[in-house]
């Protein structure tokens, strides 16, 4: 009986299936036509939007701001002719030109620090000149310094910039081994260096981050640095990375270190910078923070006000002030202080190889800048 029923059902089913598929086909055709129409409409609105956006962007550029495509995301200021010449010389194997360029910074340690990294960048790609330099002058402190900084750079290159889960075992193992090698190179550079030179210790800051120095060990390193150059802006900025939650610290530690630095300095010495970094790092780390809320909190407003006062007291010819201005532009934008933000954008525009833009990218920079410009320009 069951068999009979099933047999009947199957026969019936076959006929019904034919019928249904025929119907659905015509239906599907209609749906497809509908969808195509909707897609057309979407394309038209998208095109209109893009056109409007382009017009707006062009209007800002017309006021003298740099177009998105022309923004320099590598540097915070134009490369100096000396730097260009030195890099070209070492590329062609003339290490002596590199040595002279670096040593010309003299005891301006911030400047010496700024000049090392571009040379290390070259050495990380092709270090024949560095090997020649080291072979010719085994106890040259400057060669040892470039060697150490290059070693650090190569370790980070091997690790790559992907998150932990997208970094391979091979990369992690090599990264660790190479940091240990870099640490040796750093210690060698410290032994050979001028006793007053903090730069080899500043190179060790990156090693400390990668190897995860315990806090006490980092404080020891830090005391070596500030004993040699207490107000070094780059060293303070580097330290913020270590004390950030993402490396070996916490939001609270980072902010307290930053405020301590600010308190130790006179207005114009620019040490209000670390607090601005601490704000940006905290916001980046916490997914649930809203920029328009967090950056308007009293701590953030106080930090921004302090930095503005610091900036006002600083030597206007000091290039380091742009480092404050980049962060201020971003924070003032979120605090809806558009006029003050515009002042910063006017100065920094063009060269955006700085915090916070290397976290956010060109598009966010342009968005913030154009917003501020439009808000402050009547009729735009």
């Amino acid at each position, binding site marked *: 009986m*069951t068999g009979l*029923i*099933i047999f009947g*059902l*199957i026969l*019936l*089913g076959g*006929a*019904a*299936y034919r*019928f*249904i598929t025929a*119907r659905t086909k015509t239906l599907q055709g209609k749906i497809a036509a509908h969808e195509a129409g909707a*897609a057309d409409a*979407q*394309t038209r609105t998208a095109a209109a939007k893009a056109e409007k956006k382009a017009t707006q962007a062009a209007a800002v550029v017309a006021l003298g701001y740099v177009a998105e495509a022309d923004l320099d995301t590598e540097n915070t200021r134009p490369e100096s002719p000396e730097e260009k010449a030195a890099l070209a010389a070492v590329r062609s194997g003339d290490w002596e030109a590199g040595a002279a360029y670096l040593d010309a910074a003299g005891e301006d340690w911030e400047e010496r620090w700024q000049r090392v990294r571009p040379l290390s960048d070259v*050495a*990380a*790609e*092709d*270090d024949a000149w560095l*090997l020649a330099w080291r*072979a010719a002058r085994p106890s040259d402190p400057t060669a040892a310094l470039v060697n150490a900084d*290059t070693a650090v750079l*190569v*370790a980070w*290159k*091997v690790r*790559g910039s992907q998150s932990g889960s997208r970094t*391979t075992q*091979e*990369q992690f193992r*090599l990264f660790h*081994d*190479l940091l240990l090698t870099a640490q040796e190179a750093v210690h060698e550079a410290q032994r050979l260096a001028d006793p007053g030179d903090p730069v080899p210790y500043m190179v060790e800051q990156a090693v400390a981050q990668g190897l995860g120095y315990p806090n006490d060990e980092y404080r020891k390193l830090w005391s070596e640095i500030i004993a040699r150059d207490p107000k070094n802006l780059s060293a303070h900025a580097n330290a913020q990375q270590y004390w950030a939650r993402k490396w070996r610290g916490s939001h609270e530690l980072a902010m307290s270190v930053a405020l301590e630095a600010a308190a130790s300095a006179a207005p114009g010495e620019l040490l209000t910078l670390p607090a601005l970094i601490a704000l940006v790092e905290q916001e980046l780390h916490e997914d649930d923070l809203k920029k328009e809320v967090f950056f308007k909190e009293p701590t953030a407003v106080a930090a921004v006000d302090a930095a503005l006062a610091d900036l006002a007291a600083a030597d206007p010819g000091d290039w380091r002030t742009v480092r404050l201005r980049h962060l201020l532009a971003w924070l003032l934008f979120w605090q809806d202080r558009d006029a003050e933000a515009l002042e910063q954008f006017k100065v920094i525009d063009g060269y955006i190889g700085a915090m916070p833009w290397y976290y956010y990218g060109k598009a966010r920079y342009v968005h913030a800048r154009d917003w501020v410009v439009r808000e402050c320009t009547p009729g735009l």
Partner: protein
Amino acid sequence: MGASLRALRALVLLAGFYLLGLVLIAALVGIDIGASAAGIHGPSLAKIVIVSVVLAVPIVRGMFMLRLPKAEPLPGVTVSEEQEPVLWRTVRDIAAQVGTRAPDEIVLIADVNAGVTEDARLLGLRSGTRSLYIGLPLMTGMDEMRLRAVLAHEMGHYANLDTRLTPLIRRGRVQLLRTVENFQDRADAKVAKERAKQEKKAEKRIAAGKKAKAVDTTGDGAMYRAMAKIYTAYGKFYRRATLSAARRQELAADLASVRAAGRDSAASALRELNAIGPAHEFYMDSYATLGVGARLLPPPGQVFGGLRHLLDARAGELDGLRTDLPEEPASPYDSHPALAERVARIEALPDDGRGAQASRPSLELLADSEASLIALERAVLTPEAFAMRRLDWEDLVHESMSAYVGQGSEELQEAFAAEGVGTGGSKGSDLASLLKAVDADPAVRWRITDRLPKSDEAAAATGRAAREFARPVLRRALNQLVTAELTARGAARWQLSWTDSATLRYPADGFEEQLHGALDSATADLPDTEPLRKLVLAP
């Protein structure tokens, strides 16, 4: 519960499976009739009918799949009473103690296990041919009293008539499993089809420059899955009904084991099982088959018999396994309760005064254990494996490790050839040729490593980062050549260890540290090959 009651339950449970099928089909038919009576007609009714037919198919198939896959007999050596009088006498002795008929055949197998089967007839109402399987690795690791305890446990299953019902219970389980699988397969196929369809659509959208919708197959195959769920629920009920009985059977068999061998022997036999199992697995992977890649095997009889060396050498390590027993059954489907529970139940019994009697190794129950181990190899190994070259343990380790190092350097040879290393009439070893080439042009090192396989990250790296990816590769390659050079000259030898992995014994103390330094120099940015040459090639 008596055996006949258990038989009845097994039968009822199996009948329940058929009943469930009929009920489900009736329900489907009922829905169709109901739909038609409720005035649904035309295409909608047809659709309902189609769905019910489609769902009925797997049910009917499950009910009519009567043929079960045949249980494979375990490969092994069947031994007659004439061949193994002592073993047979022991087994009969145990059978008498447990109070059951002795098995009809004894088969020696290659597992750390013993087991019984019974070819029961008439749904388990009549006794059939009884087979007793005894693992030689089990005998290797246990003394006679413990083996008696294990065998008594197995024969306890005969006595409780457990073995008779096994086929019936198995039929029920297999048919249920098949039906559930059938439904799930259909559900999966439907999801896969839908996914493919949506992905194709998404591709089209992307091709047309639009944002693709996320693929969503949540609702697909839901009907199939619902049917599978009904059967799974019955399966769970079935398993609970039979499993608790199965576990009780195991505990009852443990009591038989205690009666036959004494409380302490029975408990320590279970502890021993927990140690020998993993030891045997490790032994088979790391020792017995170590030379297989070089087509080498240990001497005849040692493929399974060599376990003894490992058990003796790692006695301390194994003690941990004897004391830390698993608290959970090996799997939810395992008919054995957790080992810890079984041992605790046995050890809670009153002392029977028999203690853990000292007794001879159980391999001595065999007329010629060596010959049995060889016969087992013949029965279990493929003819190809059986015919492999046999070497004693020391030579086996040395020769196979040397062969593996040699095999590993084959791609190195190709890289050398491509870079012209060792060609042009230079004589001597690979290492000598390479060092010579490095002296002439240090960069040849990176050209060689560039030809060796590497990770995507290494391939993408440039400049010094690329070199840092290559440096460990170069170091390994050089180390390989050093090993090949030293072993070929007889200056170094791979060393067997029953407690650790094989190591290379270098010509002198402190050689290894010197070698590290020499490899560092040879792989440095500004290389110095002299230390390596002096250390390895000079003598």
